[in-house]
């Protein structure tokens, strides 16, 4: 059994920010990530981020990842990082099991921050198992991390920010986006992203869905159908588009499994993307000493994940008896940033969801 003071699972924007602030406070941190590269989803984000300068707005996502990793450099002695290490089990007696370098290792922690992110949702349609049907995350990884173009002619399903942004990145990489399809009556993501696609000639089809993919051994096209107000296909509106890739970007769901294994209360909160741990105002779950941040506690933008990670790191440190010298100032600043980021119409859903996922009582 390996003894660790603070373990952070996930080295995306939330985990990296949590590690930095906890280390500043004097914690000894173990940061665990399953990927060979640090930064979580940031490493494949080639577009510039929104937000304010405090969240590094106008910087491309992969550059933010580099900056957050560089922020940990001064704490090399107290922040240990395991990469290509997957946490496969979590036990209520504060034990994690980790698969790394071909062996299982057991860790006993005093405090834990779950910054494990979210998983992509799938979409049921005929032939969705054909080669050439991708999730948006896979498309971004192939294209932006490894330099592999997943298809020459692509149909995108889903008009949230991910669908919109990945379309633009596909065009930058030299692909043709034949259409962007959205089942809802309105575009889901930021209209500035949608406008970028429209002026490059990409059709955006709302109230439309994919019925089936065509092809025997690989995607050769898709059949689309218009949807009525009850989201049912309208007979006679089917149309066919030739393509060699279909990209599914229909949303994310928080990865709640580790919190569940630890016995945390995990209600379903649709506004936050699915099952999420109940959190107190300091981001502590109903299990004492176990905190959560980032998409793992509700799907939002990376800007909110960074700030939420700082809060979790700050309070995990206090839980461990390491009060950050600027605790109150940082705490106040983070809360102000979060309410500002969530203050607009796009934050309404998050605000509603957070109310449902917040516990007023102290953790057990």
């Amino acid at each position, binding site marked *: 059994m390996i003894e660790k003071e603070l373990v952070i699972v996930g080295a995306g924007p939330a985990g990296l920010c949590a590690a930095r602030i906890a280390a500043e406070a004097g914690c000894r941190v173990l940061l665990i990530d399953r990927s060979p590269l640090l930064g979580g989803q940031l490493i494949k984000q080639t577009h510039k981020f929104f937000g304010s300068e405090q969240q590094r707005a106008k910087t491309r996502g992969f550059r933010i990842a580099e900056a957050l990793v560089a922020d940990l450099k001064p704490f090399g002695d107290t922040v240990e990082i395991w990469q290509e290490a997957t946490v496969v089990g979590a036990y209520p007696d504060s034990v994690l099991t980790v698969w790394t370098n071909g062996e299982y290792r057991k860790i006993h922690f005093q405090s834990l921050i779950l910054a494990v992110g979210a998983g992509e949702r799938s979409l049921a349609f005929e032939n969705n198992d054909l080669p050439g049907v991708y999730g948006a995350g896979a498309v971004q990884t192939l294209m932006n991390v490894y330099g592999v173009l997943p298809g020459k002619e692509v149909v995108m399903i889903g008009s949230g920010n991910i669908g919109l942004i990945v379309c633009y990145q596909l065009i*930058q990489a030299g692909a043709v986006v034949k259409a962007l399809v959205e089942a809802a009556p309105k575009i889901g993501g930021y209209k500035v992203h949608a406008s970028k696609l*429209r002026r490059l000639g990409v059709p955006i089809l709302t109230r439309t869905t994919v019925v089936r993919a065509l092809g025997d051994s690989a995607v050769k096209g898709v059949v689309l159908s218009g949807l009525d107000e009850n989201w049912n296909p309208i007979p006679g509106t089917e149309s066919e588009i030739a393509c060699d890739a279909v990209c599914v970007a229909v949303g994310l769901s928080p990865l709640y499994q580790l919190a569940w294994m630890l016995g945390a209360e995990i209600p379903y909160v649709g506004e936050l993307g699915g099952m999420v741990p109940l959190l107190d105002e300091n981001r502590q779950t109903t299990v004492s000493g176990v905190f959560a941040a980032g998409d793992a506690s509700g799907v939002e933008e990376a800007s909110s994940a960074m700030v939420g990670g700082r809060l979790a790191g700050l309070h995990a440190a206090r839980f461990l008896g390491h009060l950050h010298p600027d605790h109150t100032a940082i705490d106040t600043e983070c809360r102000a940033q979060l309410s500002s980021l969530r203050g607009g119409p796009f*934050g309404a859903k998050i605000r509603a969801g957070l109310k449902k996922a917040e516990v007023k009582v102290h953790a057990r």
Partner: protein
Amino acid sequence: MLDKTGVPTPDQVLSRFPAEKDLLRPKAILECYEDIPCNPCSTNCPFQAIVIGEDINAQPRLIVERCTGCGLCVAVCPGLAIMTAALKNDRAVFQIPYELLPLPQTGEEWVGLDREGRPLGPARIEKVVRKADRTNVVTVSLEARHLYAFATVRCPR
């Protein structure tokens, strides 16, 4: 319309243009029609010509008299939603953000596109500024009648 198609209405577009007499010098056209949490255009303007205010979800507003048309905001906007526009004799001159390859070269003739990607007519590449962060700024001119329709350029090849 913007909600369904990603294309702003002509009224929305017009609301972001100053009077034509003010376009003898280039001015920023802020095509941000939605309250989203973002403010680099405002915080990076050297002339305090773009106002967002305390709530970063508010839409940016241009103070026309302060705007020098420098185009810094064009390269800064994460949504690529800002261009500058000016009227010079019978030409409309724009600075637009450009993040695709190939990059246009000064003197080339490209195809001007409207907000739905439809060709408007020939667009002369006047100047190309390569930026370190890869959002390049291209100065391009078209016939003046395309002032309110122009959105971007397409490689003619």
